[in-house]
């Protein structure tokens, strides 16, 4: 019985080893595929890749993982990597990828025209594909938009016991605080963060959805979330007693983060990757990128999802989003010091 078992195991291993050869023969005839490492979840990118393949005939092979493992994987593989394009969420990770030299600069008139300067790497290593606004939501039964002033104002004593926040372990909050540091400096930011912590109504939340539901249930009155989480809940319940508030330009504007992409340093098919990037910055893909997940298109010429438009327009912080990466480690340390868990 044991010998049989070993033989079966050996056969299975052989099977496993030859799996690779099938793949090779399959992709030989058509256009060279573009290989993507993506930290954007599969359900949010597959429709875009499918549309690209349908439009151009170029197949796309992709593998998903979290941001940091993908960047470390690219570093470890070096010249042997299969990846042509790195697609990731959060500007901090994009900054880090550029900092670790796993991306190469891409020069393209199409990208220059479609993606605003503050939404791309100063050296063209990456370009934002969608914009995620992290703003304030409030309980419409107890508050009016006039009661709110901005991120810093949430540190004011009048919000004692009324504020809900998500954990500082989430990169979205790390980016938000990093941007505050770059605008206001560390000292002032630390005072703000300490004020937030003092105002917390309850323990920090592990995700934005639960935070919004807590406002709905009356556990707190204001909170800071990414707008698309609110959008999802609004889609389920149009009468949700929660609304979005946009901090004005006077108070520094709305904090935005991005998902974006860059061609890898050792891409085997850099032209294919560049063509995909350019296509993604144009209307069809931008509609898909924003639409499905109710994010904002990075290309300002494209209008967002109708429901997203209904939230009104906002003035984004004018800082380059790459600053979020530059100050991220400082932000994390600052939040630890301030007792923001």
């Amino acid at each position: 019985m044991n010998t049989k078992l070993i033989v079966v195991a050996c056969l299975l291993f052989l099977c496993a080893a030859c799996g690779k050869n099938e793949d090779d023969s399959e992709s030989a005839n058509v256009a060279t595929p573009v290989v993507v490492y993506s930290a954007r979840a599969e359900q949010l990118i597959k429709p875009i890749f499918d549309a690209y393949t349908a439009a151009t005939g170029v197949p796309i092979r992709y593998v998903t993982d979290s941001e940091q493992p993908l960047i470390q994987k690219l570093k470890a593989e070096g010249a042997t990597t299969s990846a042509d394009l790195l697609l990731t969420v959060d500007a901090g990770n994009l900054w880090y990828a550029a900092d670790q030299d796993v991306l190469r600069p891409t020069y393209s008139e199409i990208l220059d025209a479609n993606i605003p300067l503050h939404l791309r790497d100063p050296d063209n290593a990456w370009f934002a594909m969608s914009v995620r606004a992290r703003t304030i939501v409030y309980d419409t039964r107890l508050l009016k938009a006039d009661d709110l002033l901005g991120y810093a104002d949430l540190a004011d004593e009048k919000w004692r016991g009324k504020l809900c926040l998500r954990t500082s372990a989430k990169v979205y909050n790390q980016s938000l605080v990093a941007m505050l540091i770059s605008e206001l400096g560390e000292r002032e930011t630390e005072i703000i963060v300490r004020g937030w912590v003092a105002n917390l109504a309850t323990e920090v939340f592990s995700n934005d959805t639960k935070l919004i539901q807590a406002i709905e249930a009356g556990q707190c009155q204001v909170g800071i979330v990414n707008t698309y989480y609110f959008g999802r809940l609004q889609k389920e319940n149009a009468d949700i007693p929660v609304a979005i508030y946009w901090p004005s330009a006077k108070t520094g504007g709305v904090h935005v983060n991005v998902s974006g992409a860059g061609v890898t340093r050792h891409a085997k098919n850099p032209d294919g990757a560049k063509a995909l990037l350019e296509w993604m910055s144009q209307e069809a893909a931008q509609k898909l990128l924003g639409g499905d997940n109710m994010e904002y298109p990075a290309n300002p010429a494209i209008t967002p999802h109708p429901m997203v438009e209904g939230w009104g327009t906002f003035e984004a912080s004018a800082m380059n989003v790459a600053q979020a990466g530059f100050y991220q480690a400082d932000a994390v340390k600052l939040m630890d010091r301030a007792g923001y868990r």
Partner: protein
Amino acid sequence: MVSTAIRRPSSRRSSTTRISSFFYRSIIALIAIVAGAPIIVATLALFVDTGDIWQHLLVHVLPEALKNTAWLVAMVAILTAILGVSLAWLVSVYEFGGRRFFNWALLLPMAMPAYVMAFAYSSLFEFTGPVQTFWRDILGNPFDFPDIGARWASIATLSLVLYPYVFLIVRGAFASQGLRSLEVAQSCGLSPIRGFVRVSLPMARPFIIAGVALAVMESLADFGTVKTFNYTTFTTAIYQAWYGLFSLNAALQLSLVLIAIIFVALVLERYLRGEAMYTSSGTHAVRGRIRLSRRYAWFASGFCGAVLLVAFLVPAALIVQWSAATFTGEFDQRYWQFAANSLMLATLAATLITVVALILAYAVRRDDGRFAALQARIATLGYAIPGTVLAVGFFVPVAALSRAMNDYFGWHGGETIALQGGLLVILLAYLSRYLAVAHSPVESALSRIKPGIEEASRGLGVSGLGMLRKVHMPILSPALITAALLVFVDIMKELPITLMTRPFGWDTLAVRIFQLTTEGEWQRAALPAVAIVLVGLLPIYLLNRQNENA
């Protein structure tokens, strides 16, 4: 190796011993290098300067993280030991209503990923969840709903998911002790309970330790559960250093501290165990169980039922309900592929890892040197390292090797090693994480085989690997089945290694959960979670039946 001639001890033994000891030592070293690769990488990271990160962590993060981790580990150890041992004792020794059912059903919580259970329970009991809403709206909030807090939520969740490790391994021990030892105890005038405390429990010690050690290592490495409850632990500090402070090296250094603690604890346990031998009484047939009186039988069924309810039925009902609600949007043809991939990877890995664990445990037993035992320890420490860190720690040297080979042979195909190696890379990465899971039950079962049996078979001319096959394997087969089952369900749930080392197209059910949960789509993620439980159920049921008949 196998010599059929009856040989005189004096003439050939010395040269045979030397060759065979070289043989065993090479095997041990090879396994240790492959499985211990991440630990070697972490050790190398010690020489990298990580700036003021340690300073910062020591002041602001580690004091709380260490305290929390100590609580978590201590309580999970105690609770899994209590639950695992008491349940195993009940189903092995007594006869009561539903015993045969509980015998395998109590393993079910193992099939559920801990992070899924954590999310299910937090959704149920949080402020906005159905229980508290009912409490406020219908009952009118008689008093503030008790909040058990992040610590006890994490402890409870991990204990409920991990007690089956202890249950499974210890149940095997009680079964192989047979009732013989208990009968002896009773004939000495001990009641069943006192016989349990004075005889069976001490005899099962290596098994209890083996099971609890696995539970402890798993909870040390846990990230999903503590993240759901926002409980700061050593592992969250490791991820903070890496993801937040962008320092993989600091994360590796912290991981090394983690495994050093485990290492010391295991060595200490071995030292305290001393020279005691835990050989079995020699009979494997369970003669018949003690029939419980009506009242106690109800108590036994009730206890097993309550554990099953809390550890499995409630969270399972919740995710079944969610997946029913999201089924039409979520289910498509690809699910069959996800399930097939999960099944294939888990089966291959369970086979490979169990075989390697057996070879390792046997080689160490034959070698009998301190250094061999040390290498085996190192090879099985990977289980305590947080998954993503281990995945990178394994991938970095493998990718470096592949780069070097490409340069040397002048290949410029530009295929990543994850593709060049087919499934080999992912399977070896699994090995480096899960060797402990298979090694633990196999080693403790091996420790109960009397050296006398080996001497006798050597006298009959059976030695070397032949002895392993003819003598040890039949005795060990329940432990091997346990090992394979544990690895199988663990790999069904595994995420970081699968994510990092899978070739294109090898998305599994767990990968699907990851895709959905990274975007906070927990309700949709219930469907792949249910599928994981269902696929994991099958081998639990089948292997358990085989175990029962063996």
